[in-house]
């Protein structure tokens, strides 16, 4: 049951976009996503990625603090984060830039907040690829070190978000506070025995 709910949670933002695209393309509701549907989808994908990323981090903390049996859903949410972040970039390239790749490269170089976002996405790709069980086993302790990068991704993601808004800091304040709390928990977390390296570490 919980398994199904998590699947729904991960996929619902995507289904909503598909539903909206069907509405505005085939059912004549051309302003279903407003007069700038590409921009709407872009922001929706970005927000979904950010929300899912923080849900992932909260699972880690909840797992360490209260040993809740939900850590098995963490990977799904993490890969979901990458999925929406990639969708966010694709929406930017297709709906905003009209697939003008030179413009895309220019934007990535010239706009610091886009560069920050791209950096976060590259890191996410690395984490998503290495989330395969075989790689996880093979990388062993280095897997843990590598996946600590997720906290950097969160920082970059929040920076990427706040850097392009003009006003209205509610979500930024919320994510910043959450990130501080999650990092504090992560730093203070109790060290446990690491079976790979034969020394104490924090998962």
């Amino acid at each position, binding site marked *: 049951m919980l398994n199904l709910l998590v699947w729904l949670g991960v996929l619902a933002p995507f289904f909503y976009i598909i539903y909206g695209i069907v509405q505005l393309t085939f059912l004549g509701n*051309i302003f279903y996503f*407003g*007069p*700038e549907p*590409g921009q709407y989808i872009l922001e929706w994908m970005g927000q979904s990625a950010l929300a899912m990323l923080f849900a992932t981090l909260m699972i880690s903390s909840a797992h360490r603090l209260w040993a809740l049996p939900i850590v098995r859903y963490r990977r799904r949410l993490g890969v979901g984060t990458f999925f929406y972040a990639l969708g966010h970039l694709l929406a930017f390239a*297709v709906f905003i830039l*009209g697939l003008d790749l030179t413009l895309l490269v220019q934007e990535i170089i*010239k706009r610091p907040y886009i560069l920050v976002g791209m950096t976060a996405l590259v890191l996410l790709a690395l984490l998503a690829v290495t989330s395969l069980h075989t790689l996880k086993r093979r990388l062993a302790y280095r897997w843990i070190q590598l996946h600590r990068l997720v906290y950097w991704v969160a920082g970059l993601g929040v920076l990427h978000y706040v850097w392009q808004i003009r006003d209205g800091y509610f979500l930024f304040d919320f994510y910043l506070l959450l990130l501080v709390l999650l990092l504090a928990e992560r730093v203070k977390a109790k060290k446990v025995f690491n079976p790979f390296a034969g020394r104490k570490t924090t998962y």
Partner: protein
Amino acid sequence: MLIKSSPAIKESSVTDESVYLNRRQFMQGSLAAASLLAVPFSPFANAIEGDALKFVKTSYGKNDVPAPFEVITGYNNFYEFGTDKTDPKKYQGQLKTNPWNIRVTGMAEKTGSFHLEDILNQNPLEERIYRLRCVEAWSMVIPWVGFPLEKLLAQFKPQASAKYVAFETLEDAKQFPGQRSAFSSIPWPYQEGLRMDEAMNELSFMAVGLYGKSLYTQNGAPIRLVVPWKYGFKSIKSIVGIHFTDKQPATTWNRIAPSEYGFYANVNPQVDHPRWSQSSERRLPSGLFDVKRIKTEMFNGYAEQVAHLYQGMDLRRNY
């Protein structure tokens, strides 16, 4: 319907105009009384909006195709109502736009508080189709109804020493949810300004309507500025203050981020916003796969009328 069409009105237009406006006021009053018992957020609370206006058409923008009405009234940057583009339409019912007064101060002979009706009585309305280019790199074509700013300012007889004119939006946290927000960094009230010669330019316009109807609140009712060769944030909405001065007035976005928003804020494809390019724009409404990305023109395509205002100025520094 409140269509003003009887030729009898012309015989003494001032009286009839005020009777006409009083009638709307009366209706507004009784509706307001009725709405005390009703839901306060009702979109029908503002009965004054959407009335048909009497105006003459002009040749401004006759080749441009206006955006659909629902787009112009449903996709707005009006941070007094919230930062989401759908917030202004959602919360517009909280602002009471009638009665409305404008306070005129500073270097002018006729200063004081003026009823909006008295101002409107002296200015016959015309329609001008203008392109609006937002600093966020999207644009819309809008058929405004209003009158030249030049005519309005002349009524107050500005002194020769007045080099700038400043404008101010209403500040009232009770009526503007965005002004109540703890998560906004904007120093209210919203302020804008123009150099006097910019204000006196033929293009500078005071809008009281669009698509032939009086302005909806989300578009800056009851009266707003439209300066089509500048980024949209210069076109200040719901004006309650006009101030004549010899010093360059403080403007809101310039105060928040001086490196991003200049006093002039002329549309200029060669000078990028530090965080995004201004060389092209998305003309709205746009489809999902056919993004109408067009090249941004110098002064938003109004160079012929306004370029002379900036002769000899470095527009890279005076952005």
